[in-house]
């Protein structure tokens, strides 16, 4: 009870981070429905690495020609530009010879190697790199929350306006193309929302929760046999529960925040899995 009382008394400390966590959980949970159904769950891992690569390049430039990249909004913008570029590339280029996951894996491993190589050339900023990309779920600045709100509203509007096109082009691109739809355009729109959401939520939650929230809530919703529309709502609700609940539990039990969120998201898979096993 004491821990709970202390938590409630510290609202000024957790107000912004908890709001950011809950919003990120909802956004990623909903977007995750497409990520899981399109079988591209490793896309978030690849895009966070691509974001990191962008930051490393910006920091290298800063150290070489003395421009001020080590400033939070600039870092976020650079991460978002790289993530969006990577997302558009991964989302719109469909090879007839290779599955989509090969491109995602290739992007992840190439970006990871380049990050290691680039970081090895950094003189001052290498030790801050993790914090710049993955942030700290316990202490999210209000400016990051503002960017997260803007990105979430943008994604909500795009998905509400173009729901039927995004669904058709993702579900059956061959037919959509045969009927004259611009499938690369709709793939690009979908991956634009992912490319924006991933670096912004990674700064609020960390890379592991982002990967988890793009996968587990949607998987839980689909296991529970939610229909297509309902899956977005159920997955968003599970994302909110896992992010908010994980944040509070990590505070009360003094656990690592991101890992607690992921563990709770894993637990929330169980009801759907049990229902599916019962038939």
């Amino acid at each position, binding site marked *: 009870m004491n821990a709970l009382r202390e938590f409630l008394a510290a609202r000024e400390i957790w107000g912004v981070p908890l709001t950011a966590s809950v919003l990120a959980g909802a956004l990623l949970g909903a977007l995750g429905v497409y990520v899981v*159904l399109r079988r591209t769950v490793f896309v978030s891992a690849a895009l966070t690495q691509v974001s990191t690569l962008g930051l490393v390049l910006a920091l290298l430039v800063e150290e070489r020609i003395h421009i001020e990249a080590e400033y939070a909004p600039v870092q976020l913008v650079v991460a978002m530009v790289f993530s969006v570029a990577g997302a558009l590339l991964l989302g719109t280029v469909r090879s*007839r010879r290779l599955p989509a996951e090969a491109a995602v894996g290739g992007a992840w491993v190439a970006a990871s190697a380049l990050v290691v190589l680039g970081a090895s050339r950094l003189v001052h900023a290498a030790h801050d790199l993790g914090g710049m990309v993955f942030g700290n779920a316990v202490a999210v600045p209000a400016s990051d929350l503002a960017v997260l709100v803007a990105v979430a509203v943008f994604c909500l509007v795009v998905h509400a*306006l*173009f729901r*039927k*096109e995004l*669904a*058709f082009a993702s*579900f*059956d691109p*061959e*037919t*959509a*193309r*045969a*009927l*004259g*739809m611009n499938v690369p355009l709709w793939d690009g729109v979908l991956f634009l929302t992912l490319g924006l959401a991933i670096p912004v939520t990674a700064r609020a939650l960390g890379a592991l929760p982002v990967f988890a929230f793009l996968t587990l809530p949607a998987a839980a919703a*689909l296991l529970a*046999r*939610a*229909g*297509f529309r309902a*899956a977005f709502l159920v997955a968003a609700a599970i994302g909110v529960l896992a992010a908010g609940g994980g944040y509070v539990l990590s505070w009360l039990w003094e656990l690592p925040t991101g890992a607690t969120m992921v563990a709770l998201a894993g637990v929330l898979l169980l009801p759907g899995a049990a229902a599916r096993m019962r038939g």
Partner: protein
Amino acid sequence: MSAPLVTLEGAAVGYHRRPLLQGVDLEVREGDFLAVVGPNGGGKTTLVRAALGALPLLGGRRGGRRPLRIGYVPQREHVDTIWPFRAGEVVRMGRVPLLGPLRRPGQVDDEAVHRAMARVRVEHLHDHAYGDLSGGQRQRTLIARALAADPELLVLDEPTNGMDPAAELATMDLLRDLHAAGGLAVVMVSHRLENVANYAHTLAFVDKDRQLFRVGTLAEMLRPEALSALYGRPVAVRELEGRWLVYPTDAELRREVAP
């Protein structure tokens, strides 16, 4: 005679600037029932995609009616069953290109969906999960989706692939009935001539490895000379109780199948 729905003149079709077939002349008119036949990987689907404009031509000209309402039925296996759509939602996707961005489906679209599902006798499956349907039911749902667009041209890619003989016959009978009802040209792709010879009015033989493209009426194409060009071995055709049978006549095969 009405203007053709789709034409290809001296067309070269393929991917990444590599032509698979060249010098293709093809015309599809109202009321046609064309079957595009050839081996797996022979370029049939590529040809049809190019004819529909879904694939840019590498040479030659594409023409025909603009705009043209097309209903397209992909290979059933290409449609992922993990998506949690109900059959009715899948059929409603056929209306998406007609609506355009920002417009929501309305009552007219719902009525078109019900009409299309009734036409292929799957109306009762409207609220069933698409992934839970049998292969034959899924095929009918995809045909209903194509019909929901009120098409002038219905294109089907290997619609009976992987079906048992009864389901295959039922699907082909359904296509014959839809075509016989009028107002619809049908183009279907199949690697099995026997499957389509009893339904199509026109045949196109396609094999990129032999650089073969030949099109003609059933009578022109069901000749030993044309069939041997397609199969690369002696083939005969016989009519038995109103159905065409196609079978190889080379001695080597006769020895293989002899008891």
